[in-house]
């Protein structure tokens, strides 16, 4: 996205005064292109050149922040259409609706459910981002009470869903310091909404009917001097929502179309909670920065958050587990010992199957830079001497009385050397993790 040194050089005064540090304007331009200098260091750059350079170097999609303290949510700042080109940076934030027409008890219960949506899976913690209080009552006082109630129960950042500036103003009195998302500025209320958002520096959703109207309204809000924005094209049909999300992303990244250089929000419409999750999967896949849901059932939310986590992993950096002796259940000195690599996918496949054997066991994960068994072996990162060293390092000798270690079937060839290097008896296990249950049954029961 950035400009080359030569493109920048054309915009500079070409005085070669050296006052910026580097001896020539060209050297300064090169430093700018590499992010090693700031344009402000040049005392002579023209206003026009400054504007040109700033807009060219700005990220295609703005970084927008909501929330405070431990509950800050970052959205946008994406640079790619396809994750394999680099990576996706800021995971889709998930919001959950709470209607202000619910009874006080129900609001409290719903807020507690949202607060409890924290999951532990494959060594990671999955969290949700927003509690979206919806002003269905159309009454500002009821809305303010509901927002207060939710805020008393959970620290999760609020999203204030009302097109009535009076309702938003009241709610901001209670939760303004938590930097909630304000939903939404429309053609009818944008001046007042922008003022409110500005006063508390909260992100403001700009909502319009269709892309054309959205671009116009964004420009109006930006014209009022506010840029912490989130976009809603107003579409609610799955295929059309996807079209708009793709179009907004393309416009921002390929054309640097400024009105669309912001994060986006999508709302599900499906009533069946399972169908709703499926709809949300499509929106998470196709670039939505925020998805607003109804269902707060753990069994529904976990699969969605798992997909989000998968999609947003860095394709170049495999997720790894710690190099150590992991425990499954409460193993003792007679428990089996399995060997695998520290590639998270490999490790957790093995762990899942070892767990299924119902035999408490140890799993030794060797650091192979997060590569799978065969890849690690081929790259010389999973060799007998190294494995023996790790066995020594984790004190395997003291953990169990027996001297049997199970190695993955794909590296059966390691058997001899590892026996030599470690002095242990090496048992060749199944090639695939899926064979572990049957293997354990025949070996250890």
């Amino acid at each position: 996205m950035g400009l080359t040194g030569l493109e920048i050089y054309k915009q500079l005064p070409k005085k070669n005064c050296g006052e910026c540090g580097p001896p020539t304007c060209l050297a300064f331009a090169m430093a700018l292109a590499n992010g090693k200098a700031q344009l402000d260091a040049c005392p002579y750059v023209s206003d026009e050149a400054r504007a040109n350079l700033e807009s060219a170097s700005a990220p295609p999609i703005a970084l927008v922040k909501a929330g405070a303290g431990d509950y800050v949510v970052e959205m946008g700042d994406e640079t790619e259409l396809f994750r394999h080109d680099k990576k996706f940076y800021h995971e889709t934030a998930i919001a959950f609706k709470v209607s202000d027409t619910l009874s006080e008890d129900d609001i409290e219960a719903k807020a507690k459910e949202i607060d409890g949506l924290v999951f532990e899976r494959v060594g990671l913690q999955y969290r949700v981002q927003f509690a979206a209080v919806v002003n269905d009552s159309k009454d500002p006082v009821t809305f303010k009470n509901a927002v207060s109630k939710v805020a008393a129960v959970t620290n999760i950042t609020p999203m204030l869903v009302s097109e009535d500036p009076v309702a938003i103003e009241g709610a901001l009195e209670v939760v303004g310091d938590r930097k909630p998302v304000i939903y939404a500025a429309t053609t009818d209320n944008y001046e007042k909404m922008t003022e409110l958002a500005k006063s508390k520096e909260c992100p403001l959703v700009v909502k319009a009917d269709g892309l054309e109207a959205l671009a116009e309204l964004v420009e109006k809000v930006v014209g009022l001097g506010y840029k912490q924005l989130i976009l809603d094209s107003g579409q609610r049909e799955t295929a059309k929502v996807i079209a708009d999300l793709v179009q907004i992303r393309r416009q921002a990244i390929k054309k640097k179309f400024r009105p669309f250089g912001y994060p986006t929000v999508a709302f599900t419409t499906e009533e069946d909670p399972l169908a709703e999750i499926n709809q949300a999967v499509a929106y998470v896949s196709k670039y939505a920065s925020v998805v607003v849901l109804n269902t707060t059932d753990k069994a529904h939310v976990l699969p969605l958050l798992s997909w989000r986590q998968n999609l947003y992993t860095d394709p170049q950096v495999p997720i790894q587990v710690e190099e150590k002796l992991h425990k499954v259940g409460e193993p003792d000195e007679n428990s089996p010992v399995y060997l695998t690599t520290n590639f998270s996918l490999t490790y957790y496949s093995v762990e899942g199957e070892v767990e299924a054997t119902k035999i408490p066991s140890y799993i030794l994960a060797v650091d192979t830079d997060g590569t799978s068994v065969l890849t690690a072996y081929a790259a010389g990162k999973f060799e007998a001497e190294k494995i023996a060293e790790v066995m020594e390092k984790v004190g395997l000798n003291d953990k169990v009385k027996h001297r049997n270690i199970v190695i993955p079937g794909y590296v059966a060839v390691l058997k001899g050397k590892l026996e030599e290097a470690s002095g242990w008896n090496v048992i060749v296990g199944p090639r695939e993790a899926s064979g572990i249950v049957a293997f354990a049954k025949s070996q250890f029961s």
Partner: protein
Amino acid sequence: MAVNIIKEKSLAKVGQVKLGATKEEGGTRTVTYTVGGDSALPFHHFDGEIANRPIVAMEVQDIKPNWPETLTKHFEGVLDKPGEWAKKCVDEYGADAIYVRLEGAHPDGADKSPDQCVAVVKEVLDAVGVPLIVTGCEVEDKDNEVLTAVAEACAGENLLLGFAEQENYKSLTAACMVHKHNVIARSPLDINICKQLNILITEMNLPTERIVIDPSIGGLGYGIEYAYSIMERARLGALQGDKMLSMPILCTVGKEAWRAKEANASQEEYPGWGDEEDRGILWEAVTASALLQAGASILLMRHPKAVELTKRAIDQLMEDNSY
């Protein structure tokens, strides 16, 4: 500021593959499907033509499968009757096609003979009118015997047979050539091997419109993102004119999703994960939905509710969204 809609024009299309053959075409199917043929990214109707809707095939096995109760309770009384099982999938659960997995051929398991396997496929053909996808037990030598026998006995039915792999593609490809079936070319999550295998198979003169790619997906939470990106790259390659990456893609959704601990573990064991029934269904449905966005054309699935959800999602995604 006016918005000038960006349309990405493709140079080429995804290949088309036809599954099944009617009486007039030499088979016995009452319905056939064509998959692939898109000239745009998945469901980007605003860029080009989305020619055919993705299809969902439900899995039937020739032996009683070792499935969790969440699944088996929907097939009570038919799990040992492949014909009735298939009929239930089509009539009650809306399966577009049937995926017959000849697990019983496994030498370490029931070790069924090629003739017994043929009988199972015939039984399913008699029971339903939809196209069939048939794979073996994934033991190379045995599959070569079994699938060759199936190909011969079902000549004219235009089956989709798998799996042809880099080290073992000749026998199955030859059988598909001779008896006019389609082949599933499976590569291990590797776009280069995927392309290489398609080249090898077409070098044996099987036309590209008789090949379907299986990229070997991981299920949700277990490497699905690798398959997702490989599929996106293959689709982009196809649209840019790379014929050897242009075949429609098949995903073994049911098998991979239901392997996951998250699809099976009880709420008692993992109270933080919620009810296992909905969780299992969604583990499969979300795997399917995610891969649809990357370009899956044929989804092999298991749970009736997951199938229903997936078909509903496909209906919505097939709606025209051009500007």
